[in-house]
């Protein structure tokens, strides 16, 4: 039944992707529109791209988004990886309890996470004398990022041969060296995956930022939301187009390289296997 998908499957495929990319196409096309209209095409122009680089407000929102995403992803990765290692060595019951709490921000509605953090920040802010701003925004982002890092790293820990660390220490490594030289390389794919997920979530987040950033700081998403009340400037289209194309290009490069490598590896494996069969017949 492999590779023999009915025509419906192909039609469905095309329709789904059309659905997902139609609005993106509209956005990209209209970032090159000469006029401010978002439905009437009045000629090609790079006008909005030029405007973009002079618009302090959008650029600063963008830089806030990048800063908070990078910082939150990095901090969440460190905390989350450490937490996963700790959880892994716990007994079933405490681990289960902590993982359930860990799951709350993921399964819960974003708006409740946002609102509850806002209550906390406002409440303690009144007591300790701080107000909503970049700090609270960052803390909120770290909070909703960590669970994903934990869940990206935990499976790698489970796959780990439990004797690996002991083997390293048996060969004279200190626990610390055993961790860095033996366990870390094994966990790396999970950690990188967690980092990437965290960064993506932060970039994409609107709801939680909206409730925790206050009025002084704005992420790009918040800036866009503010604009929707009147009209979104095509400058934002331009910025998003640049971002989108960059990510697309990066992903394609990474994947083509990976695919190329897997193909090479497959070829090598096949060659080895053939030799193996001959040699293995003793």
């Amino acid at each position, binding site marked *: 039944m492999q590779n023999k998908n009915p025509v419906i499957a192909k039609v469905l495929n095309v329709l789904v992707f059309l659905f997902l990319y139609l609005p993106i196409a509209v956005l990209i096309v209209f970032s090159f529109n000469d006029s401010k209209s978002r439905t009437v095409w009045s000629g090609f122009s790079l006008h909005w791209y030029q405007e973009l680089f002079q618009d302090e407000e959008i650029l600063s929102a963008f830089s806030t988004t990048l800063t908070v995403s990078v910082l939150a992803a990095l901090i969440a990765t460190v905390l989350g990886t450490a937490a996963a290692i700790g959880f892994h060595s716990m007994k079933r019951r405490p681990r289960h309890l902590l993982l359930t709490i860990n799951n709350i921000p993921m399964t819960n509605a974003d708006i409740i996470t946002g609102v509850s953090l806002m209550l906390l920040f406002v409440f303690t802010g009144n007591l300790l004398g701080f107000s909503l701003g970049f700090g609270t925004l960052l803390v909120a982002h770290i909070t909703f990022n960590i669970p994903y890092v934990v869940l990206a790293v935990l499976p790698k820990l489970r796959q780990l041969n439990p004797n690996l660390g002991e083997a390293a220490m048996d060969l004279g490594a200190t626990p610390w060296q055993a961790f860095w030289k033996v366990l870390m390389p094994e966990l790396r794919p999970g950690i990188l995956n967690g980092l990437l997920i965290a960064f993506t979530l932060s970039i994409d987040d609107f709801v939680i930022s909206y409730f925790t950033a206050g009025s002084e700081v704005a992420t790009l998403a918040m800036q866009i939301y503010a604009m929707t009340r009147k009209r979104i400037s095509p400058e934002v289209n331009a910025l998003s187009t640049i971002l989108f194309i960059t990510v697309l290009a990066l992903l394609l490069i990474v994947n083509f390289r990976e695919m190329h490598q897997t193909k090479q590896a497959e070829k090598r494996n096949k060659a080895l*296997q053939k030799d193996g069969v001959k040699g293995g*017949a003793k």
Partner: protein
Amino acid sequence: MSKELIRLRNICMAFDDEQVLDNINLYFNDSEFLTLLGPSGCGKTTTLRIIGGFTTPTSGDVIFDGVRINDVPPHKRQINTVFQKYALFPHLDVFENIAFGLRIAKVPEAEIRERVTEMLGVVSLKGFEKRRVDQLSGGQQQRVAIARALVNRPKVLLLDEPLGALDLRLRKDMQNELKRIQQQMGITFIYVTHDQEEALTMSDTVVVMDKGRIQQIGTPEDIYNEPKNAFVADFIGESNILDGIMHEDYVVEFFNRKFKCLDKGFAPMEPVDVVIRPEDIEIVPADKGRLVGTVTSVTFKGVHYDTIVDFKGYKWLIQTTDYHEVGEVIGIILNPDDIHIMKKSEYSGLFGDYSSYSAEYDEINDPDFAEEDEEDADDED
């Protein structure tokens, strides 16, 4: 043996540009226990999958009861399979796993109950009906897999290395169990394994395969006593294989000496492979032996000693119950029926020298003997 049930005619199979099966011709009789035996990558699993209908051969015919069934999908064949690692459905309990095929066939509920219960008896798993399959031991899962297949009353049961995942002790028990079930049900079992001992113990007929070709078909005794070429001689049991020249019928020369043997029908002075089983060789004092050599290593094996003896730089394996010290010079005697003559083949010269003895001896007994290669090949269809 009674009538012919399945025939494979000129079966070839290629994945991409790799020839996996090369012109296989084979028939299976009713109520027979037949084993496909060979090292990993020899094409035995592919052969089984072709019979089961999971793989379509590149060319050739699969005949079942006189009808060509190449294009009949697996679910319409009166053949059931016990899969490698069992493939029990994790979302169903033991009872429902076994009842699966009957439910598909819309068998009435009462009959399902009756037949499943009966099968649970056959595989000695009464009382396990409501267990989840992941709560079973390997041996129990094995039994469920067998019951799940047999309950459908297939004409043929295919078993793909079914004992590979079990430990040695359990394997021995299950070998007897399988043989008993086969005799009780009276249906054809086609069994795939790389374990020669398993094959010899259980089968009526053994088919030895290598490199996608059939090397020999015969009863376990035939295969063991009259191997057709160096590969079979080496793969089944232990063998010393040497170059010889057939002078005339019943006379063969090796090590510059003529020996009497029981083989005939070779051209005069034809080069041949000579097989001598290690347990057939009799050790005598040096002055009474037809050949004289020096013991280079001795390993205690429980029932016997594995004794390696150097004859002019060529090392033989001899299995004896008497202990001979390393360095001792001994003689040997060979009777005519201890000497088996084979035609030269592509395998000549590859096997049968015990100079690098210890490493290869272990390899053949390893149950996990590189099974992965074969699976990879199957996944590419």
